């Protein structure tokens, strides 16, 4: 048994921290906060360029694809440190879609897409959900029909976040209408500038933008269907597994908690230091212990990946635990801030930059996004403990 980072891992963590010290300043954190996901601001773009210049864009990609070939534990350390610093995270294009293409794409597709992703020229929106297909992704109706050397795509996607700034969509479409539901889907890359693609904004509770995507006879080269026809459901599940490694990180929770602790140490309410309130002390202590528990779950998942396993149950455990923990941090934060906890982030007197009430509004999404926590608990039951489906 050994829970300490190896010397190489500790050195990598220090290297990441050094990079953050050099490239993250209050201006970047502020821009990231104000921009939400309304496209990336100039400082975020500069930060991402610095990541690319350092060769860290594809940190977990194998070296043969131009990546650093870092282990999953090292990737986890990177995500944790970046999130903890409040810097813009690597896009899902790099951490979710690209690793899927590496595993399922043919050689020509890998040559076509991976170098462009690595250079920062490609940015995907993820097109899984539809009005009638949320958690039940096998119900997808958006379909593509082969016409000569092109697919003709028609349908509608929901929650197509970043579609307004993306260059391409990573789209789940039905290509095999006669096959069983799960075996009738394929993954396809659709350029956002293709005729027939329309994006409509949807504003959600924490002030973030997502989109509805409409596809009207959109023509896509035949070679843009990634991997095998009919295997899209499984490819999407694979991409979601990669995505969960990031969602299961406690980095953002640690940052919010750290800011909350700093405020509690300094603030005086009714003439008494807030830190002397027994209920405040207890809630802070419980959250600290929970954060450590969440950290262990994420770290173990990464370690299991490095052992050559596909730790679906463990990554679901981390996702469920951390998403629900962030809800508790947000709730405790708002209560500890009291009346001041209500203020909008743009209100000049908002404490901890209004992030606690923002987190309170964001937190529900963490539990239903990236695969609902009900589905995650099913995965833990089925794959972790062999519970029967019928």
């Amino acid at each position, binding site marked *: *048994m*050994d*829970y*300490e*980072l*190896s010397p190489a*891992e500790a050195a990598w963590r220090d290297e990441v921290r050094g990079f953050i010290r050099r490239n993250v300043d209050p201006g970047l954190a502020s821009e990231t906060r104000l921009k939400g996901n309304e496209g990336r601001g100039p400082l975020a773009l500069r930060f991402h360029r610095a990541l690319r210049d350092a060769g860290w864009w594809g940190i977990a990609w194998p070296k043969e694809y131009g990546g650093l070939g870092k282990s999953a*534990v090292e990737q986890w350390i990177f995500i944790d440190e970046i999130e903890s610093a409040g810097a813009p995270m690597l896009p899902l294009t790099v951490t979710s879609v690209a690793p899927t293409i590496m595993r399922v794409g043919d050689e020509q597709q890998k040559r076509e897409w991976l170098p462009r992703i690595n250079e920062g020229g490609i940015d995907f929106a993820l097109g899984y959900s539809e009005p009638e297909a949320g958690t039940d992704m096998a119900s997808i109706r958006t379909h593509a029909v082969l016409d000569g050397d092109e697919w003709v795509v028609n349908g509608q996607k929901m929650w197509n976040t970043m579609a307004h700034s993306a260059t391409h969509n990573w789209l789940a479409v039905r290509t095999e209408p006669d096959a069983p539901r799960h075996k009738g889907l394929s993954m396809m890359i659709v350029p956002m500038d293709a005729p027939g693609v329309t994006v409509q904004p949807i504003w959600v509770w924490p002030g973030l933008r997502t989109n509805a995507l409409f596809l009207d006879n959109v023509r896509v080269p035949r070679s843009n269907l990634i991997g095998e026809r009919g295997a899209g459901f499984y490819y999407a599940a694979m991409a979601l597994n990669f995505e969960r490694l990031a969602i299961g990180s406690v980095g953002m929770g640690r940052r919010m908690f750290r800011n909350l*602790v700093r405020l*509690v*140490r300094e603030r005086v309410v009714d003439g008494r230091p807030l*830190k002397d309130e027994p209920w405040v*002390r*207890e809630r*802070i*202590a*419980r959250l*600290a*212990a*929970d954060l*450590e*528990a*969440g950290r*262990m*779950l994420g*770290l*173990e998942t990464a*370690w299991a990946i490095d052992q050559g396993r596909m730790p679906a*149950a*463990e990554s*679901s*455990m981390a996702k*469920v*635990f951390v998403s629900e923990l962030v809800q508790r941090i947000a709730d405790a934060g708002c209560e500890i801030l009291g009346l001041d906890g209500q203020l909008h982030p743009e209100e000049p007197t908002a404490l901890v930059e209004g992030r606690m009430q923002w987190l309170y509004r964001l937190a529900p999404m963490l539990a239903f996004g990236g695969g609902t926590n*009900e589905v*995650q*608990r*099913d995965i*833990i*039951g089925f794959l*972790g*403990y*062999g*519970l*029967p*489906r*019928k």
Partner: protein
Amino acid sequence: MRPEPTGEQRELQEAVRGLLSREVDPDRLLRWENEPAACDPVLARTVAELGWIGLGLPTASGGGGADLSDVACLVEECARGLLPRPLLGAIRSADALATLDPADPLLPDLASGRGRLALALDEPGGRDPRGWKTALSGPRGARVVDGEKAYVPDAEGSDVHLVAARDGGSTAFALVDRRTPGVSVQALRGFGGDRQGHVGYRAAAVLREIAATDEALARVQRRQAALALAEMTGGMAAVLEMTVEYVKMREQFGQKIAVFQAVRHQVADMGTTFTAARHLAWQTITRIAAGAPRDVEEASAIAWVGQAFKRVCWTAHHLHGGAGFVVEHRLRFHGERAQSLCIRWAPEAPALREIAAALLD
């Protein structure tokens, strides 16, 4: 990082599992509950002969020379298989003595099972060593101990007590023969299976004194807590395992109850809780084994793991329904141990206080 046992540790755990699955079952545990030693003397002898009690003791004292992580692996598996508490207590009290004095002449007897040691720390007035009143007195060579110790595990079944006492302004430990004049044991009916008792010492002759510092006492207590964490993860593993088996087998409304999402999700939460608790526990165990100073993560483990064990047990009881509620079921032994271990070695409130102080003061 390597958050799983080594090959040797796995072999040890498999051997323990094999023996305990043959030798320990609820009927025997129930029978032993009514016997003075609270366990079978044959099993006690076997355990000693296999070197379990002495595993972490110095080889010069007849022990195995293993480190705390190995002993914790042993204890984890013993707890999983419901080794009677007095025998688990024998492993932990031997560790306490060896921590204080690795060359104490009593250690070979403890390793061989010829002697059993009780650890007498807490007092009726409280658990904080600064408030303990039990004291040593008398001239060198004729020292005696006076005071009261409360809730001493194995107080009556042991041969020797290791008594924490004040010696002037400092801490000391006294080894006292349980049968020596002046020692009175009031056996207590409790739960958790560790046969506790209140002990009075009235000018009780001291066999041997071990001078110690407050730091030495803290080291003993941290190691005891580490072993308690291992007991808890072992118990939790067993409870989770038996619950998974039960929901896969039990049928209601014409189907296995595991098929119901409400049941499946509770099992999933048990699994998540156990997984996080296991890693929190073992991070702390390995750090204590390596001699690392106490940190916030250690307090977090103490605050979290005990509560996790209790939560897992309650959920298991809920999912087992009446089947797990009968006295012959293994589940209730784990449930009792969960609370008993938590109260003694992993109380949540002081750990939370420690975390809050570290972060806020």
